[in-house]
């Protein structure tokens, strides 16, 4: 059970072939203009502007539209106009599959309903984020997905607490972090006590008993758990139109706690559990 996109779902169900999906994706790529091409077609930017934005993107990881606005090439209103035009003319994968003959138009609604049902466990529940936090929707997504994975995969009975802005994360038995870049520059941290680590390891290793496992294997299981959370988070973010790249998970030394980045934001999502301690941290770099 993982976050999926529609085309993937259709291939896995055997409704369309890999080749048909690639054909449909090819049609999308030739139909859906990128932001720069759309803005150029609307007369807002020139080829020289595109080159300037691309050069700037090599230094700072920002989407094309946001970078253009940041460089003063387009106005906020023009940014909105381009995004609206993209949205209105976008060829979705379902429609593309129809156009390449992989599915019939009358069957698409049924397939979409089945996809929605398949992905229902990953619909984001509301998580209150303190005001002033950059990109609260992503922070909400990260916290919600972690909690869903803790209960559905690790089988833990948990309750989420109130999100708070913090200067540091307290130490714990095992703390794993994963760097993120793209639409968000941040570090995700999962901090767990020993028995929670073992519960996660039981789930990842698919065994009832981890008493004979090495420290390295138990910690590796938590790192893989974080990898699963963040990868699925990237998939969910992609559905929101955001691009997130994830680094490798890292076990970190947490004695004395982990400070939030200077000038950035440290968010703490406490998770209540009967026996043990879990904290989800999201340390965002200065914007």
């Amino acid at each position, binding site marked *: 059970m993982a976050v999926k996109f529609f085309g993937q779902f259709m291939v896995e169900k055997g409704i369309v072939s890999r080749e048909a999906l690639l054909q449909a994706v090819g049609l999308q790529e030739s139909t859906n203009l990128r932001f720069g091409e759309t803005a150029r077609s609307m007369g807002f930017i020139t080829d020289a502007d595109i080159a300037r934005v691309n050069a700037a993107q090599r230094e700072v990881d920002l989407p094309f539209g946001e970078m253009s606005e940041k460089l003063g090439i387009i106005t906020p209103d023009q940014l909105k106009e381009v995004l609206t035009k993209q949205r209105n003319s976008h060829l979705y994968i379902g429609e593309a599959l129809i156009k390449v003959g992989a599915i019939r138009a009358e069957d698409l609604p049924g397939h979409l309903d089945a996809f929605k049902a398949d992905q229902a466990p990953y619909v984001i529940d509301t998580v209150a984020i303190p005001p002033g936090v950059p990109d609260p929707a992503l922070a909400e997504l990260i916290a919600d997905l972690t909690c869903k994975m803790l209960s559905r995969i690790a089988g833990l009975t948990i309750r989420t607490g109130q999100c708070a802005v913090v200067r540091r994360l307290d130490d714990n038995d095992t703390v794993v972090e994963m760097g993120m870049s793209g639409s968000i520059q941040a570090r995700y941290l999962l901090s767990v006590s020993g028995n929670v680590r073992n519960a996660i*390891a039981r789930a990842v290793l698919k065994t009832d008993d981890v008493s004979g496992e090495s420290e390295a294997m138990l910690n590796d299981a938590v790192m893989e758990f974080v990898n699963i959370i963040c990868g699925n988070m990237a998939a969910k973010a992609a559905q929101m139109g955001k691009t997130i790249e994830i680094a490798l998970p890292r076990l970190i030394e947490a004695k004395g706690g982990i400070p939030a980045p200077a000038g950035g934001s440290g968010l703490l999502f406490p998770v209540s559990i009967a026996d043990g301690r879990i904290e989800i941290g999201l340390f965002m770099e200065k914007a």
Partner: protein
Amino acid sequence: MKKVLVVDDSLSVARELSRIIASSGEFEVAGHAKNGAEAVQMYLQVRPDIVCMDVNMPVMDGITALRTLVSLDKNAKVVMVTSLGGVGDKYTEALKLGARGVISKPMQSEEVLKLLRGL
């Protein structure tokens, strides 16, 4: 039995994938590589029938390794096993480069075996 090379930097994933493969009775684990560079070396030594490969790995990531393997052997059967499978761009990029399938983590053993049986 068909030989499968398991490529993942995570000990726990490698173990779980190996367990799924070994329990099938139809496949056997030919080896375990911890990154893409090792995967390419081992592929040339062991010549497995199938490669199950992670994407996010140190030294050489899975997409680069996939590209390399397919350029060395156009008949290489590589399946990506990744937490990023649900990211549309990553999924289609892997298929375009020649991956025979993509399994999203958390993986289900039936899903893994169904894909391997189809190759």
